[in-house]
């Protein structure tokens, strides 16, 4: 095999988030409508490589994904050693808006998964005019916990291995083995306590059952997509959320679990492409204005 580069550009973006200096790793591919992608708790932007290599998408969308602070190649801010990482709803929204401002994105579409699928509901409620469309994969306003997060960060259990071991059951069986194991690898590489810290948003600070009453999908369309094998954010959780939001479209995806974009991208495209087609048709291309 001859060597070649993937058509993905990765760079570091220096910006302030919540008054602190950060250096955020950002990848992008394609051109057209900006599509900002939000990774799951405890992982990083590598989960979106499938989208970035999908010419059916990159021919019309500028696909952008960034590693959240403390994740992947976005190191923690200075002084991190004296604090415990905990992701709050406000900090998560501030991060997304800061990255949009830093990249000068004009009403991007946003696709998030898991915690990213949850936070798009907050964006829909409070910032609908800043986005052209919102897609929440494995997203719901709330779901009951199924394990104690203390297991994710303790000295007598290997953090990376237990994080991967827990979430492995959320990947649908029957998908590509290489993609399954790369998805797990991302979890094995997370920093100590970071997955647990992300879940503070998911479990403690991010109950959005009242927030979703403010969502007006006429200002910003909203889709929710959930894999049938996800027992963390179950299809019933997503469908209950969708029923509470007028105009929200929800789809249960077959043969997919909690990580549709990385565990089985080919299967995911059957559900993602039609949504992006609607967004592309209904949203003016900023480069054409």
């Amino acid at each position, binding site marked *: 095999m001859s060597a070649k580069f993937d058509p993905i550009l990765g760079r570091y973006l220096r910006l302030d988030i919540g008054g602190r200096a950060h250096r955020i790793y950002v990848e992008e591919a394609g051109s057209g409508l900006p599509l900002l992608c939000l990774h799951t708790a405890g992982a990083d932007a590598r989960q979106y490589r499938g989208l970035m290599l999908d010419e059916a998408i990159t021919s019309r969308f500028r696909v952008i994904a960034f590693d959240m602070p403390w994740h992947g190649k976005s190191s923690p801010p200075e002084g991190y050693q004296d604090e415990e990482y905990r992701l709050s709803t406000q900090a998560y929204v501030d991060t997304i808006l800061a990255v949009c401002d830093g990249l000068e994105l004009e009403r991007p579409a946003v696709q998030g998964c898991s915690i990213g699928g949850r936070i798009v509901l907050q964006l829909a409620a409070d910032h609908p005019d800043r986005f052209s469309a919102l897609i929440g994969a494995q997203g719901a306003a709330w779901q009951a916990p199924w394990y104690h997060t203390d*297991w994710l960060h303790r000295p*007598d259990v290997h953090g990376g291995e237990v994080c991967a071991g*827990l979430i492995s059951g959320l990947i649908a069986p029957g998908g590509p083995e290489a993609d399954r194991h790369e998805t797990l690898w991302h979890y094995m590489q997370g920093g100590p306590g970071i997955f647990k810290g992300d879940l503070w948003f998911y479990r403690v600070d991010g109950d959005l059952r009242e927030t979703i009453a403010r969502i007006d999908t006429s200002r910003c369309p909203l889709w929710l997509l959930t894999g049938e094998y996800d*027992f963390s954010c179950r299809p019933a959780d997503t469908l209950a959320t969708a029923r509470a939001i007028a105009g929200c479209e929800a789809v249960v995806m077959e043969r997919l679990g909690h990580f549709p974009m990385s565990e089985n991208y080919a299967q995911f495209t059957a559900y993602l492409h039609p949504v992006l087609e609607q967004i592309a048709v209904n949203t003016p291309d900023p480069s054409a204005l």
Partner: protein
Amino acid sequence: MTDMPADFSQLPVLFDAHPSLPRRAARARITMLLCAGAARCRLMLHDGTLKVGNAEGPMDGWDIALRGDASVWGDHWRRMPPPDAADIFGMSRHGRMVIEGNFLPLMRHLQVIKDILALPRGQA
């Protein structure tokens, strides 16, 4: 004495046939009580070896128990298991399995234990 469930008895043979499992389990020490309805056995994973034993003897202890109907194990071992039987915690979440006991040795070696318990998948 309860007869050992046939499917569980196959686990050591399947384990030994899988080259990476003894290596991955080299430091694991855990005894699991596996229940399929009324049938039960103890699965002992110690230092890279796997054995199945009866669970009815005096003081036959265990670290953690996984209790479910025979049907949930059968579903777990289908080539394409249904969404409510693809993972031990998923089976618990869907109300088809009870997991109780000392979770520490399970969580220390979670993935390899999951992989061992799923070994019969697609064998039928």
